[in-house]
């Protein structure tokens, strides 16, 4: 058996020797072929078809991009800006025609304040116009530091940081904190720069209904349930509420005390955009926090631009050092942009203190542009004394509604006319408005008109009051009764100039009885 086996082996070797060369080569190739088959894939995974150079050239030849910009109609409204010559103060020359300015955000009238101008000129002579460098690279001037310091002191926060452009302030501040994966709860009426900031942050964005705290709480609750499901993720997901103090789009004030309650309940941070409310709301113009008496430390970040009430350029953020300092390296608009012009920084320094502390001419105006609906309306408030304004500001817009109050005050001795308007949404608020506005004795007209545009008609009841005291009582009587009270401005444009009429329409006849009878409107000389 063993020998037999041995023989077979020997046989085989012998056969190998004896086999012709071509046979061996053939077998060798066969073996290699089998090995290749064993190790190669049996089918091709993907059909590769590379384009030839010629085909590529053809493709390049054929491709036609869309035009860089789509064609536009020649009569688009934005192509024909109104040209303003001269300073845009309370009188403004638009397309060569003098008008009364109801469109600028020059709330405090600081645009043509002589003291501000003089300060600015002093700085201009010392520092020139531009800063020629970002803050990190010799673009930090002593006045920048002073302004930051004074803003922080004024707002009673630890620190403030200034930006050179109002639009960029909140748009840079949001992405400095809120990153990918974080959650931002934002009011659906938030202004455009907030939206851009949110977009840049790449966070999850949840919109809640405008000023609707129940809706916000619903979202926060949903988030809480979500967090319980995934606690590890929740530990690193930052949460923010972004709201505006005074909404530019709706002229509403945010319900800050409720927001603060929600903040602590659900552990969310609040970023507050105060571009409209800074210098306008609150006893000293510190914005909604002062207006509601909320502790400013409860707000994590306040951002405002200085292009409205302060009538300069730029913006600032303020809050605790813990929060603000981070922006000095992470705020893109801060690090990578040239710092604010010095003379502007400078004048703002003096403004912040001079404007808010001492009584002066104070204008508030809110311009709202609803481009979607294609119309524009402005709400204005101008008062002769800062003190009056303080209380006037209070009732501005708590509720959504269409209610305007306007007061026109004529100081005949001085021969010019202020008009005061505010949008108020509750009868009760109106009381305090009237109350404060008419404390000063003078010739006052108060009237209200109600325009029901839906029904396409307009009626007005007017009253004129010649003594401040009467007005007070009028207002009281008007509002004691629960009723719908509309205050509105009717502006008549006659050929030769402007006349302003202010109307008061009260739904309850009883209230009106005590008012002296009067013609429906007074034509004021231009």
């Amino acid at each position, binding site marked *: 058996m063993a020998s037999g086996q041995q023989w077979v082996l020997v046989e085989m070797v012998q056969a190998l020797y004896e086999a012709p060369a071509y046979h061996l080569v053939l077998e060798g190739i066969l073996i290699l072929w089998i090995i290749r088959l064993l190790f190669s894939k049996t089918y091709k995974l993907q059909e590769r078809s590379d384009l030839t150079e010629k085909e590529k050239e053809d493709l390049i030849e054929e491709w036609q991009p869309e035009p860089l*910009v789509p064609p536009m109609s020649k009569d688009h409204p*934005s192509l024909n*800006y109104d040209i303003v010559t001269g300073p845009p103060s309370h009188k403004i020359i638009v397309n060569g025609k003098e008008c009364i300015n109801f469109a600028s955000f020059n709330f405090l009238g600081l645009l043509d304040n002589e003291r501000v*101008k003089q300060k600015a000129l002093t700085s201009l002579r010392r520092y*020139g116009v*531009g800063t020629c460098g970002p803050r990190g690279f010799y673009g930090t001037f002593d006045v920048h530091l002073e302004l930051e310091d004074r803003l922080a002191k004024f707002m009673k926060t630890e620190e403030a940081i200034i930006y050179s452009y109002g639009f960029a302030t909140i748009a840079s501040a949001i992405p400095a904190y809120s990153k990918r994966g974080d959650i931002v709860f934002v009011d659906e009426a938030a202004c455009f720069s907030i939206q851009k900031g949110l977009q840049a942050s790449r966070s999850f964005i949840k919109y809640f209904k405008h000023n609707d705290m129940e809706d916000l709480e619903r979202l926060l609750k949903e988030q809480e349930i979500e967090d319980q499901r995934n606690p590890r993720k929740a530990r690193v997901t930052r949460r923010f509420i972004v709201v505006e103090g005074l909404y530019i789009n709706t002229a509403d004030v945010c319900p800050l005390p409720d927001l603060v309650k929600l903040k602590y309940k659900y552990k969310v941070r609040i970023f507050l955009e105060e571009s409209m409310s800074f210098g306008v709301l609150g006893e000293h113009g510190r914005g909604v926090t002062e207006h509601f008496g909320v502790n400013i430390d409860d707000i994590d970040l306040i951002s405002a631009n200085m292009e409205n009430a302060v009538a300069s350029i730029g913006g600032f953020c303020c809050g605790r050092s813990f929060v603000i300092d981070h922006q000095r*390296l992470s705020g893109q*608009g801060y690090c990578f942009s040239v710092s604010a*012009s010095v003379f502007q920084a400078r004048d703002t320094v003096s403004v912040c203190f001079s404007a808010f502390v001492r009584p002066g001419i104070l204008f508030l105006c809110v311009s709202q*542009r609803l481009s979607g609906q294609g119309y524009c309306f402005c709400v204005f408030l101008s008062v002769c004394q800062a003190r009056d304004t303080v209380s006037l500001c209070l009732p501005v817009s708590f509720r959504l509604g269409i209610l305007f109050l306007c007061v026109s005050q004529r100081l005949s001795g001085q021969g010019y006319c202020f008009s005061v308007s505010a949008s108020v949404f509750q009868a009760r608020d109106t009381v305090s408005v009237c109350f404060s506005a008419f404390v000063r004795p003078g010739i006052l007209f108060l009237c209200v008109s109600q325009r029901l545009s839906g029904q396409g008609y307009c009626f007005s009841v007017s009253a004129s009051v010649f003594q401040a005291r009467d007005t007070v009582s009028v207002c009281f009587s008007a509002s004691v009764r629960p009723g719908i009270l509309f205050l509105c401005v009717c502006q008549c444009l006659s050929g030769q100039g402007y006349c302003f009429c202010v109307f008061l329409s009260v739904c309850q006849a009883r209230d009106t009885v005590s008012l002296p009878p009067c013609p429906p409107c007074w034509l004021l000389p231009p």
Partner: protein
Amino acid sequence: MARTTLSIAPVPNGNRKIQLNGNHFKSAICKKNGYHNKAQKNITSHGASPPCSKQRFQRPESFEQAPMYVAVMTYLGFGIVTLFGYFRDFLRAVGLEKCHIAREREEQKDFVPLYQDFENFYTRNLYMRVRDSWNRPICSLPGPLFDVMERVSPDHNWTFSLTGKTIDNVINMGSYNYLGFAENNADFLKTVEDITQQYGLGVCSTRQEMGNLAIHEELEQLVATFLGVESSMILGMGFATNSMNIPALVGKGCLILSDELNHTSLILGARLSGATIRVFKHNNMQSLERLLREAVCTGQPRTHRPWKKIMIIVEGIYSMEGSVVRLPDIVALKKKYKAYLYLDEAHSIGAVGPTGRGVTELFGLDPSDIDVMMGTFTKSFGAAGGYIAGKKELVDYLRSYSHSAVYSSAMSPPVTEQILRAMKCIMGLDGTTIGLARVQQLAENTHYFRSRLQEMGFIIYGNDDSPVVPILLYMPGKVVAFSRAMLKRKIGVVVVGFPATPITEARARFCLSAAHTKAMLDQVLFDLNEVGDDLCLKFSRRIFSPRPQQHNNNDDADSQIID
């Protein structure tokens, strides 16, 4: 090579230099940019555009690489600092070292932390130690000389307090004051003062509402004339000009090809637009062409639909590299592949070109070849804001749909007037040649300063025409030492390191100005030479022949300073 001799430099020098380029520096040509040696390889792109008789080609641009040991030492330096950082974090955690960092409020302790701990590691442990080199406050005009406010820190740079003293007459090598329009001469600023008196400081409205002043219109027309284009639009902030206008031009289904070293504002704008972004190597035409070909041939990812638009975004002068965009090549590529070109001239407008019209003039190109011309007024014009210029349809469209045009406040009147004044001066509309003289002075200063630095043996980046001169310092320790030593010698310099630059390429950036006098530059060069020797900053391995004929009175100036 003949192209390089078209440069302003005297021909004999040019020849010698080129010879050196060819023979000695082959090893030193950086992968990033070796244009002067590879110029002829871009035939494809040149072939596409008919050669223009006016067209000037790029001056040599160098990106010399440092010796290997420098990179090793740099990493080592960062390694040591990082290790110490961890050690100190540990000490802080156990309470052995006092923690200076601002704390969260007690009431909000249980909130999700606002910052991740590691996010601030770099700030806390590296940046804090050297913070005094940045954000130095000044208290004078940012002209050629300025006064720096002295700061002291009792707690190793965690807080600063001003001593009230100033370091007077520091030579300013940091501000972007290219043409010296940061000035406070009462005669020059007369019109600005008048406008301030007349209009006040702000506008308090947007352009679309009641903020469109007559001087805005005037400036827009002047900018269009200055650039030689149909129309232009001005905006209040340079950063926002980029970040808010790019989204109006491109969107979903469009492709943005962006240079890897583009400014943050361009990156933000590209990101906000929602378009697909692809990045090409800095100033590298091969990389750009490859991306363009691929984009046109394969279309959008997954669906393979053709792209709606392709937009190339580049800068005129790159502010950290000092390199000038290779515009003729890019224009040729863009024409071939039908892409659109967005050119950001933030640093180049006013600063380069025989009459200060920017890179298009530098290369003798027709401005209409560039689809979107963007620039800022912050640098050469000593003001603030930016512009977008181009065809009328483009500007009209942006006026109606660009975010910043619709929603942001109009430019401040005094700033507008400053730009008007500076631009009229450059154009010679004020009846003088001051503006033109400044442009020429800047070019002269640039060439002088750059050539002297190269002779001294510093590694400098960028184009010979660019007034931005980065000197490579590499190691983090040297960056700080350099900045402090220069301030001690009354020279204000800007130093930048990681993350603004690649980790191994920390640098000092010098911005030249027409307002710098030769004596100032000589003083700076003299001090640089000494500091460079003290700190061993002369890394260059190139051999430069002394060229006394180009600046023959240097020796006198130097000896005066030494005396």
